[in-house]
């Protein structure tokens, strides 16, 4: 297996001896997937009404995985995080802005990091009113704790997507604030995300010119594919790309991009190599079954090429690195957005993750240019 050399080896001498030091002349990176965390639920208290804080304490988060906390697919490391991202002062990885700044923003030359809060954020909760209250609280908490004090961080508007009206209200509330750079949803929703019930969300996102992130995970109550529930974490991890494909198929075939020509959708944390095969499959089927979908005026691959972006994490690692470069070429160099997934364990370092043989100008495009236009950053 050909191991990857760092993109700029002369600028990237490994050094674990002290805090990361910003190195001059390094590319300024746009990171499409950073995960902030709260130290404890107490951090959300200032942003919740008494009624909902009491509800949270009494009934807690209730979602279709049936668990109050620990996922039925336990992770391979505590909280699925890098072991070196636990703040010394305590609290979970991602909860210390100071450590995020020094270890990641400074250390990895991040110019902008786009936030995607995960965990018990209210998304997918059975109680729709509670879901809406939690999402609002999480958005306010993001702003107070991360995006106001640190201009390099941009928030993701967490929406209670199973309640369309509440989601639109939340986008109207947060959309005007330039601290937010995306609408944040999860891939495993109650119906495929192209379903008409979710369209008002896309209408609102389009109105504010915000891309919609569909990040892997979510608790739909269904196994990740129609083949049933796998046993192991390794299967769940490898299976995330299927949930991304379900979303892309649905958005395209339901006609979301026909209806919302300004909408951009970013598939987050599902890797990217699945996209060409899916595009080709959908094109062949469209040719065959055009009469089932007369609302589509163009081929699926054209909609995908114009509206769908994919983040690069987790970076694909075939035995022959040239295969990844093929795939990137097929997807289109302008559709790929670097993401680190900091502070999770399958994190990608922007200067070490990419395959050997990637031209520096392509690296720059993926890490520093594409995100600028998708997230509308100055």
């Amino acid at each position, binding site marked *: 297996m050909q191991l990857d050399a760092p993109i700029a080896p002369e600028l990237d001498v490994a050094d674990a001896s002290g805090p990361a030091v910003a190195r001059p002349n390094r590319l300024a990176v746009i990171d499409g997937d950073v995960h902030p965390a709260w130290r404890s639920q107490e951090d959300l208290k200032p942003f919740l009404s008494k009624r909902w804080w009491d509800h949270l304490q009494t009934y807690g988060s209730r979602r279709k995985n049936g668990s109050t906390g620990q996922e039925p697919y336990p992770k391979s490391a505590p909280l699925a995080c890098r072991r070196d991202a636990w703040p010394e002062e305590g609290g979970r990885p991602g909860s210390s802005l100071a450590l995020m700044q020094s270890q990641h923003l400074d250390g990895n030359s991040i110019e902008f990091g786009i936030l995607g809060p995960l965990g018990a954020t209210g998304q997918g909760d059975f109680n729709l009113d509670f879901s809406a209250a939690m999402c609002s609280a999480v958005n306010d908490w993001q702003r107070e704790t991360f995006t106001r004090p640190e201009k390099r961080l941009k928030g993701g508007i967490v929406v209670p997507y199973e309640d369309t009206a509440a989601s639109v209200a939340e986008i109207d509330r947060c959309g005007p604030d330039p601290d937010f750079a995306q609408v944040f949803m999860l891939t495993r929703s109650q119906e495929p995300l192209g379903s008409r019930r979710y369209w008002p969300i896309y209408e609102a996102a389009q109105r504010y010119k915000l891309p919609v992130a569909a990040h892997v995970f979510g608790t739909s109550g269904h196994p990740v594919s129609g083949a049933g529930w796998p046993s192991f974490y390794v*299967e769940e991890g490898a299976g995330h790309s299927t949930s991304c494909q379900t979303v892309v198929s649905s958005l395209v075939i339901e006609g979301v991009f026909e209806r919302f020509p300004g909408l951009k959708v970013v598939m987050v944390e599902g890797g990217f*190599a699945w996209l060409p095969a899916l595009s080709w499959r959908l094109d062949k089927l469209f040719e065959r079954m055009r009469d089932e979908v007369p609302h589509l005026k163009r081929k699926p691959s054209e909609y995908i090429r114009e509206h769908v972006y994919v983040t690069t994490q987790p970076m694909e690692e075939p035995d022959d690195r040239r295969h990844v470069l093929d795939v990137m070429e097929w997807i289109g160099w302008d559709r790929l957005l670097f993401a680190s997934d900091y502070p999770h364990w399958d994190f990608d370092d922007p200067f070490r993750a990419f395959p050997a043989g990637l031209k520096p100008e392509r690296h720059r495009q993926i890490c520093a240019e594409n995100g600028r236009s998708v997230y509308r950053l100055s």
Partner: protein
Amino acid sequence: MSTEWAGAIDCDVHPRVPNIRALQAHMDEYWRDTVELRGIEGFESIAYPTNAPLTIRPDWREGKAGADEHVERMAKALLDRHGFAHAICNCLYAVQMIRDEHMAAAFARAVNDWVKAEWLDKDTRLRASIVVPVQNPELAVEEIERCAPDKRFVQVLFLAMGELPLGKSYFWPIHRAAERHDLTIGIHAGSSYHHAITGSGWPSYYLEDYAAQSLGFHTQLGSLISEGVFVKFPKLKVVLIESGVSWIGPYLWRLNKFWRGVRNEVPWIDRSPNEFVRDHIRLTIQPFDAPASGAEVGRLIDQLQSDEMLLFSSDFPHWQFDGDAMLPAGIDASLRRKILVDNPLAAYPRLGGRHAT
């Protein structure tokens, strides 16, 4: 008849049960009468709507009856026309959809006996999969034991989307019986519809349903490897049928990458998933999801890292290609021979050699 396909082994053709009376003829008295008494019209899944374009290619539709309902018509359209040595019949009658496991077993028996009588007995080139009642692995093993002595059965048929991933120990009695009889496991696109067909529930369009089938294969492949099926049953071979092919390279990159980091969760996986795939997994070639020009086909086949992975199939009568363009463009002559003959022979031990009748 041109000679370019002569001797080829078509690993996926679909005989269609014309009506329930055809199956009743192969049921015992209780089930025959039950069908009448309860007005059982039959089990037709929505996986292949009869008049949908994909289901039967226009020139294979012959008025009300398709070429897939009669062995002579299929022979004329396919085996005679091209000079195939064999074709493997995968009957997709929706036995897997039935909830009553005993009824499922009765229908499975009837389907297998119908395939024998109407297809295998009438054309010596034909081979078939054993349709099993997956609803109860013990009953499935009984059916395998019943059919296995007939060497024209070369495979045990599963669908890509059932209630549990196929690597789970629930199914091991079936895998054990298959391995014992040198029967290949065939996993074919399709669903029992006992689950929503995607991880986000039910999509609106048939196009999405068919597209989603490739995702079921992701789960099945991950399951067979992670659960250690090939450690438990080292002789077992599995063919992924009508899957789309080009999904598998990228899926394996993910599975291998995750495995390296979480190996201790599944320590019986003592070599990389890629190695298990090369030794145990094969794919039929139609449909091959790639642009028609063929420019990417070579690179996609490179991703498989083995020229033994692909098995020729027409997927008759599904409309996957036009005319006689049964292989995607872009495949060179030496690989073509492997796909048409060598790889199918290796994937189906009962096809040739000491098992041939």
